[in-house]
């Protein structure tokens, strides 16, 4: 309801079309000149800070710059403006992935998949879900390697201590025996 209201208000305010055009320009510029894209985005945000297209562009560009906190904030606002946008879900999934939140990323990608508009998009999202799966597998592998090494390292310390302890104790026993044998009856 709030999103609908914001969109309605946005549509009535001036500069909306210009803001949408600038948002498109951000996508076109981003890989070649991110500073220029950021400047264009700032102009678009000044014209229509709540317009869906502008918020999508802001999410996309900040994600590209790996400014994850800002990307997440713009993404949340973009979803308020249009909760059914599957691309925003994918980008928010990417934000979660880069932040290391694999569960969050998987949830976002599933949401996006449920709203996929065509097969190519669905294939892309599937690839991202697979990436999450690979990362999960990697983390589990890394954890198991760390556990294995820690167990072996702890075992090594025990062996070292036990070996040294056994040597010391055996020599003390020997010394005691000798002391007993040498003691005058």
């Amino acid at each position, binding site marked *: 309801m709030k999103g609908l209201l914001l969109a309605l208000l946005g549509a009535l305010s001036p500069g909306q079309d210009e803001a949408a055009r600038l948002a498109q320009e951000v996508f076109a510029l981003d*890989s*070649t*000149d*991110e*500073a*220029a*894209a*950021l400047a264009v985005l700032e102009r678009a945000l000044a014209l229509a800070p709540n317009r869906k297209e502008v918020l999508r562009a802001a999410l996309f560009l*900040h994600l590209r*710059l*790996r*400014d994850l906190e*800002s990307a997440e904030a713009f993404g949340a606002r973009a979803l308020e403006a249009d909760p059914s946008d599957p691309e925003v879900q994918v980008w928010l999934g990417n934000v979660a992935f880069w932040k*290391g939140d694999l569960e969050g990323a998987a949830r976002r990608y599933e949401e996006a998949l449920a709203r996929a508009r065509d097969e190519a998009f669905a294939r892309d999202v599937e690839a991202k879900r697979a990436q999450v799966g690979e990362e999960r597998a*990697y*983390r589990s*592998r*890394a954890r198991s*390697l*760390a556990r*294995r*090494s*820690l167990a*072996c*390292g*702890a*075992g*090594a*310390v025990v*062996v*070292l201590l036990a*070996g*040294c302890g056994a*040597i*010391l104790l055996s*020599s003390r026993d*020997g010394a005691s025996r000798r002391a007993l044998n040498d003691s005058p009856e």
Partner: protein
Amino acid sequence: MSVELAAVRLLAPHFGSSVFVWTNVIGVVLAALAAGIFLGGRLADRRDPRSLLRATLAAAGVLCLLAPFLAKPLADFLVPPEAGLRLGDALPVFAAGSLAVSVVVFAPPLFFLGALSPAAVRALAARGAGVGAAAGSVLAVSTLGSLLGTFGTTHLLVPLAGVRNTFFVSSALLLLAVLALTPRAKGPLAALLALPAIAAAASGGGAPREVPAGEERLWAGETPYQFAEVVRRGEIRMLRVNEGLDSFQSLLVDGTPWTGAYYDFFALAPLLAGIEERGALRALVLGLGGGTVSRLFHDVHGARYALSIDGVELDPGLLRAARSFFDLTPARHPHLRVHAGVDGRVALRALPGPFEVVVLDAYAHQVHIPPHLASVEAFEAVRDRLAPGGVLAVNVGGFGFEDPVVSAIGGTIAAVFRTVEGVKVRDSRNVLIFARREGPLDWERARESASDPGLRALAGYAACPPVRHSFPPAGEGERLSDSDSRLDLLQIRSLWRAGLRS
């Protein structure tokens, strides 16, 4: 000493040669020696000291021979090459794994080597020497042997024969000593003992570790400082040292000066220094490695500026590999003067400058910036070598601007230079820190003056405020200095934090 030094080198391709590995090896060696000396002393009182001497020498010799054959499978079990472990997650594996391998592989031979001394004292005393004189002689000979082992291993055996052969040579020497102590009737039997070590040494060492799937190894070898290898993955050639994992020392991509990695950002430094077209660009590169930065400067800035580069590399072994596999030749790098085997701080004293750009990309043990190159004193030396308006560019490994290593080095540089800013390198654990001797770091101007499309895209990225961070000067007690450097500790903390994140 020979076994101890070679032990660290034997572990380095698998676990690196960080402070953990060194302390684990030294700790295990000392514990094993202590146990051996203690028990050897008890046994020497009960048994014939000469036969005890022969037995301990033979056992130590055989175990030294086995060490390289045991270390590799054990290390591969703990850090499988196909696991794809990332450097950021490897610290607990390296710390605990190197301890486990040290105990299994190096403690047994060192235990028997420890048992030698009391047996030798007893043997000398049995021949009529006083106990004090016998102990003094054995300790003196043992210390001189350690001295010989230290210099011989570091400067001769490892560089000339390799790490595995160092173990085989040690083994052969121990077994030949058995031969010398064996009565004539048993001589041939003892000679047979020495044969496997000699045969193993003659057969060479073999590969110290496997390369991950999808990579082809072009070269591998021991340099005076570390294990190094050149591998190819598709169109990318990588120079890696020690444990490697997902990290690399130098990159070369076929057909382009750009690497797609942090090195590319060094190309922004001349733009930030505000050098006029055709003006002098005198650059000092501390940590030349395979010459990635020199290549980039030649290809991207060679036509625009009057270029001259002083490249400093401590490890001459890396330069030899770079000549063969990274085309680090005078023909390809006509404006480069290479200073081989020179430490960065020494170079800062010896090279007069002035330089428009100083690049600091020096690492020890793969991930550790040498503390003496990240101190207030080091950055003051850089500032004194910079031309007015000159720029220092430093590669710092760390996970963002809040990383303890990044903030400590950034703050320390800011205590010396007025303007210090970091740029986060996309999708990497690198932050490039830029500092200017005089004047501001004008990113917009750098972006406008970039003519090469690749350089322009980089400048465009770096000009975005969200990817940059301005470092405030570190307080008196916080800055890193030659006498009070917490860098090793901070680097360990940074890696722990990274490990905990995943």
